[in-house]
């Protein structure tokens, strides 16, 4: 945390309201996001209890597993989830625009431009918290290797159709969420915490209710008070007034309300199975439906507040203007969506349990590159971010006090004007260090020449190096003028990645060697009698 962010938190403490941590929105928000508020059963690995899901704030779809340990009920839940998620995901597949991508021509080995499709928009999944992102990943892992009856008639417990496909998509969302700056799947607490500084620690910011209480406290109350109430207040039954955003539920809810309800459901089901004639069965079916309705009401009561909170968070975020370079990052998300769409259509197998060396190295390199890009872009989009970089000596801003024309010493002299900038910032500059400023969205490079009157004076002399046109005289507006405010960074605006990785065929033996001829289809998880999912 930079000192500026710390200061914002301290101001939040003293004013009782969250303070801005960003002046623009650094993440893309879709016009039609899919909000997913899941709950899981404690103690089981990825056993869903229920969820609210949908794109319409006023009409969420409630999905419930009345007995989370029952495999059939769980499959029914996942099939229903697939019915909501997959049509949404597919709805972005058909609107495409033409785009170019450079590929290596297999015959000549040269880089050539290829015309490809790029989806005009992409789906966006919003979950309440970081734990929700992990759950999406876990659900994806639990489903993508399942076999449907059609794929494998021998499968002991075939999955409903489309469930494996849902698993592949959720896995893709989960993997994409690991890329810095991506917006295909967002955790609401992370995004809100990115844009506001509250008067509590980052650990406490993981509670969506408390976080929102700081950002938008109810009329006449301080954020601290409201946040504490959101965190701890319980009603007469000992239940949290503001249920946790999940996916884990409050133990008091499990023990006092949910467990008895599930027990009643189990009893009603056993009774129905034991019914001897139709009349009796009708009665008992009624009891079973009532028991199920009770569990549905319980799940709804715990997810609806979170559902509302997520939408409230979206409202708050939409009020911020979008950063100038957010659109460019969203285009990368669109590429990632298009790519996965193509892999699914091409009938490629699901993502493997473990990445091979080549894929893993590529993913890691991509994430490092995106992290550097994100940091640079956020600073360029947002003066508040840039302020943090200026404080740490990675950028400086100031006024141009003098411009002297100069030329390079080559046969055809090109303009190399010397610009003197007065700044109060203390950048870490050495001789001939390159600095960059944004000129019409493109970076212009300058070189640090020296201090006019020592490092204490605050007068920096820079030599502008490029973006001045081909002529002898620099183009209009390409050189700062006396009196201009300028901001230079020491970091590159479009950071390059590391060295290119070798082709898969060239993978060194230390990393497992070249991949085998044909990828083997990974088997589904073996199922045993006492298994659950």
């Amino acid at each position: 945390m930079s000192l500026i962010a710390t200061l914002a938190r301290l101001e939040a403490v003293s004013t009782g309201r969250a303070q801005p941590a960003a002046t623009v929105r650094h993440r893309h928000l879709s016009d039609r996001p899919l909000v997913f508020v899941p709950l899981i059963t404690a103690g089981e690995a990825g056993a869903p209890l229920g969820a609210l899901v949908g794109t319409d704030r006023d009409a969420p779809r409630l999905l419930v597993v009345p007995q989370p340990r029952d495999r059939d009920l769980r499959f029914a839940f996942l099939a229903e989830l697939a019915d909501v998620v997959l049509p949404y995901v597919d709805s972005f597949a058909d609107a495409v625009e033409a785009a170019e991508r450079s590929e290596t021509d297999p015959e000549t080995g040269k880089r050539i431009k290829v015309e490809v499709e790029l989806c005009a928009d992409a789906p966006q999944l919003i979950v309440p918290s970081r734990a929700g992102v992990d759950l999406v990943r876990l659900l994806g892992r639990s489903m993508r290797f399942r076999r449907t009856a059609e794929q494998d008639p021998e499968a002991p417990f075939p999955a409903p159709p489309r469930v494996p496909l849902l698993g592949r998509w959720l896995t893709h969302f989960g993997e994409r969420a690991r890329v810095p700056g991506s917006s295909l799947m967002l955790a609401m607490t992370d995004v809100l915490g990115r844009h506001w500084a509250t008067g509590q620690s980052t650990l406490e910011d993981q509670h969506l209710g408390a976080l929102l209480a700081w950002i938008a406290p109810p009329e006449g109350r301080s954020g601290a008070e409201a946040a504490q109430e959101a965190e701890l207040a319980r009603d007469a039954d000992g239940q949290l007034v503001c249920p946790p955003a999940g996916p884990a539920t409050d133990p008091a809810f499990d023990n006092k309300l949910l467990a008895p309800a599930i027990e009643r459901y189990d009893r009603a089901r056993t009774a129905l199975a034991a019914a001897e004639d139709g009349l009796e069965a009708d009665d008992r079916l009624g009891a079973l439906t009532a028991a199920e309705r009770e569990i549905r009401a319980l799940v709804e009561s715990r997810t609806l507040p979170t559902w509302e909170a997520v939408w409230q968070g979206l409202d708050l975020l939409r009020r911020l203007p979008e950063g100038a370079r957010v659109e460019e990052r969203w285009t990368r998300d669109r590429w990632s969506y298009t790519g996965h769409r193509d892999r699914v259509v091409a009938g490629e197998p699901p993502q493997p349990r473990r990445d091979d060396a080549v894929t893993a190295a590529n993913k890691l390199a991509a994430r490092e590159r995106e992290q550097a890009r994100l940091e640079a872009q956020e600073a360029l989009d947002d003066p508040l971010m840039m302020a943090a970089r200026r404080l740490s000596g990675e950028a400086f801003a100031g006024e141009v006090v003098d411009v002297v024309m100069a030329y390079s010493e080559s046969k055809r002299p090109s303009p190399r004007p010397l610009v003197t900038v007065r700044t109060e910032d203390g950048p870490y500059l050495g001789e001939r260090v390159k600095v960059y400023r944004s000129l019409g969205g493109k970076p212009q490079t300058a070189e640090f020449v020296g201090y006019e009157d020592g490092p204490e004076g605050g007068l920096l002399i820079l030599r502008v190096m490029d973006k001045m046109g081909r002529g002898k005289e620099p183009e209009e507006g390409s050189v700062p003028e006396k009196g201009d405010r300028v901001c230079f960074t020491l970091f590159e605006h479009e950071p390059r990645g590391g060295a290119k990785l070798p082709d898969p065929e060239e993978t060194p033996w230390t990393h497992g060697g070249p991949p085998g001829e044909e990828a083997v289809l990974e088997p589904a998880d073996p199922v045993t009698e006492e298994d659950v999912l």
Partner: protein
Amino acid sequence: MPPPRRREKALRHRLAELRGPEIPAKALDARALAALAANPGCRRRAILDGAGVNKAALASALGSPSVFGQSQFAFVRGNAFEAKVKADGGTELLRLAHEKLDRAAEPPAGAQVPDLTAQGPQGRTARTELALREAAEASGTWTLLDHPMLALDVAGSPAFLEPDAVVVHPDGSWTVVEIKSFPMLDGAADPAKVGAAARQAAVYVLALEQVAARLDPAPRVRHRILLVCPKDFSNLPTASAVDVRRQRAVTARQLARLTRIEEIADALPEGTCFSPELPAERLTEAVESVPATYAPECLSACELAFHCRDSSRAAGAVTSLGRPVRAELGGLTTVEDVLAAARGESGDPDDPAVAALRRAAALRAEALATTAAPEVAPCP
């Protein structure tokens, strides 16, 4: 100075007084161990854990109840899994120990599973020690100790620990077994949870080493523990050897430099008592008489955290926003001090921390002012 024996007795008496009359001491459970690792320097936690005070009951009596609870679903599932792992004389557990830790040894068959039931923690500790001694004599066989009881000297008073199991190998060495119900997915488990399990197991290793040191020849306590978890989405057990040397070294160091409980107890006013039956004001007074070192990490490890957080916030301590916050603020420890220094109302401008703060405040104000302008410029 009284002889050590009498001093020890006096301390035990003193701790019993702190706990309140007729209240049994609480054993150091996994959460208390986590709290020890998360915040070794907290004197309040040290004395309360040392005296065996039930902190959850204390927190409720203070009016800031802890939020730790266990869902019965998790509890049932956890117990069912542990029972499954240990079923049938621990066949599966020993098979995993053989496979993951000691493949050179004879495969386990007809392992000893001594009965460890006894009266009270002291009795169970003695029974465990006896069983370990017997196992050391019967070399060449596998022995499984199910829920043994170990005593560890924590800041001058014995803390009782109950590992899930301890395995004695045919070569006489000992291994701590941790059974957890979080899944191991494709061979990898949640790193945070594995870390917590490793820290917990490290404490058991230390306690076992103390037992081993009393035997002759002293058996080796293995520094690779066996972590048993459900495999993927099933409840079939799978295991992994976890090296806890680092955690063991860290915990040993923390235990060695723990403020002596005796010293803390001596500094308390006469008649201090933490019995949850006392009225809230008296309890608050008693708790406030020992200084705490609150940090947000306490929220996930200590039952008393909400109480400490309230006092920390009321005092305006910057640490309530996180430990890293304090690091860059130099000698300024309260919110008001920092803000006053940033506004230029107080503080020495030659102090680098104060100078950095003022610079940060100016830059922040400048950045926010530029965006208040009608057009949002990306850069000044």
